[in-house]
């Protein structure tokens, strides 16, 4: 399996990202009535919270699938040079809607590779307060507001990472990635930073082939 590049042609749909951002995705997420593509179905099930219809067994299956997706795209020659960092959940850990799904995926990946590869996964960024998840509100948080509540976890800052890969489920405006990038690059100025998303949100079927050069 191959990842897809978030190219300049996609930037109008992720307006906080810039041409310099190095981001990748597995598939596209649209707001249609069905969730039948492999990636949409994966994301839809991965976001389920306890008590929701289909939480069990689909959430566990989605976590497993996400682990396999990530394992399928990493170069074994480079795996020990990278640090995988989840975007923190929108809710604090004491919030009933707290869902640490990306961390769960990364832990699962580390566990599965154990014995063959040493995978560096770290919650380098934590956040000091909850906010409305960006897919459920009109008044979206800005990268600056996010930066203000993001903190580097100094307990896990060493050894200093050289290649940080920020992992999240859906790339929407690019707000979280931008805020993560900003905080991480200030603290680790020599580290390269990339983003990998399970899906990128495509708005109204997008405009990527409609724009002239």
């Amino acid at each position, binding site marked *: *399996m*191959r*990842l*897809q*590049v978030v*190219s300049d*042609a996609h930037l109008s749909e992720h307006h906080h990202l810039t041409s310099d951002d190095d981001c*990748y995705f*597995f*598939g*596209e997420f*649209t707001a*249609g009535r*069905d*969730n*039948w*593509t*492999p*990636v*949409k*179905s994966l994301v839809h099930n991965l976001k389920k919270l306890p008590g929701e219809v289909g939480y069990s067994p689909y959430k566990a299956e989605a976590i497993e699938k996400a*682990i*396999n*997706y990530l*394992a*399928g*795209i*990493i*170069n*074994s*020659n*480079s*795996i020990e*040079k*990278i640090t995988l960092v989840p975007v923190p959940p929108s809710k604090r850990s004491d919030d009933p809607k707290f869902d640490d799904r990306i961390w769960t995926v990364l832990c699962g*990946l580390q566990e*599965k*590779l*154990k*014995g*063959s*590869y040493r995978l560096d996964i770290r919650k380098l960024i934590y956040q000091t307060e909850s906010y409305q998840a960006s897919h459920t509100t009109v008044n979206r948080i800005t990268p600056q507001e996010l930066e203000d509540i993001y903190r580097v976890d100094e307990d896990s800052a060493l050894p200093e990472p050289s*290649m940080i*890969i920020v992992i999240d489920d859906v790339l929407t405006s690019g707000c979280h990635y931008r805020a993560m990038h900003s905080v991480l690059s200030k603290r680790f100025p020599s580290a390269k930073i*990339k983003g990998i998303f399970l899906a990128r949100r*495509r708005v*109204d*079927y*997008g*405009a*990527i*082939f*409609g*724009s*002239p*050069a």
Partner: protein
Amino acid sequence: MLDLKVNPSSSIFAEQPIDVLQEMAAYEALWNQSTASFKALATIFRENPNAIPSEFFKTDELNAIAVELRKHFGKPENNKGYNACLFRTADYPTRLRDAEHPIEFFYYRGELDLAFSPKSVAVVGTRSPSEEGVRRTRKLVAHLVNSGFTIFSGLAKGVDTAAHRAAIEHGGRTVAVIGTPITEVYPKENADLQEEIANKHLLISQVPILRYSKQTYMGNRFFFPERNITMSALTDATIIVEASETSGTLIQARAALKQNRKLFILDSCFENPTITWPAKFAERGAIRVRSFEDITGHLSDATPSRL
């Protein structure tokens, strides 16, 4: 325990990530070669199992083609949401690999979800059906939609048009797999229908835009039967409503059996004394449909939920 792929380069990725715009240009570049055909392209990728189209061209060549292509896509304000799907990415429908010469790439507009419909059938037939043929198509599609099937067809005049329209009228889902480029309207009288399918359902085309624009109807007509093979691969079954002895529909009938898909032929075809193909296909495994239950009975166990 999982094992990872080795890439000798220093990239963090096992394989180079793809840029869909580049692959689109590369697909067009492959088709610009005079020897190109779906068979020839499938052979290239069979012989180079992990290759993607862009690996066969220089970036300059692809950029030049991209410029040419953009003219066909129109201005941003007329954006029609063109998109493309490439083999080896997560959302490529793997059932396409059941075709004899699988396509590496296709253009689409609309909801890609429908290419992964948990229940899907192609309803196809002649461009000039009898009144009874149209009535049968509409009735059949109404039943299929009520049973949760997504209706695939080819957007041609006649049975195809009746099938798409009936699916929409009954609140169902429909997919048009067309034999013309995604940027063209064909046939003209279906312009509104094509647009509605692209906006609310799914429109698929494997036809190379530039090659098509450079050749005459004589060369371009060969794209029609090729889309029938793709349509069959994307669905659980093909149902033939009405078709003459020389109909392109029979290409799809052959493909369905080859791809291990169910093939249904309406009883009325068998009763037509002027044609012999129904009996021939029945001998090879096609199912004669006397009632709607003949279809659902054969599909219920063959269509596990893919949700």
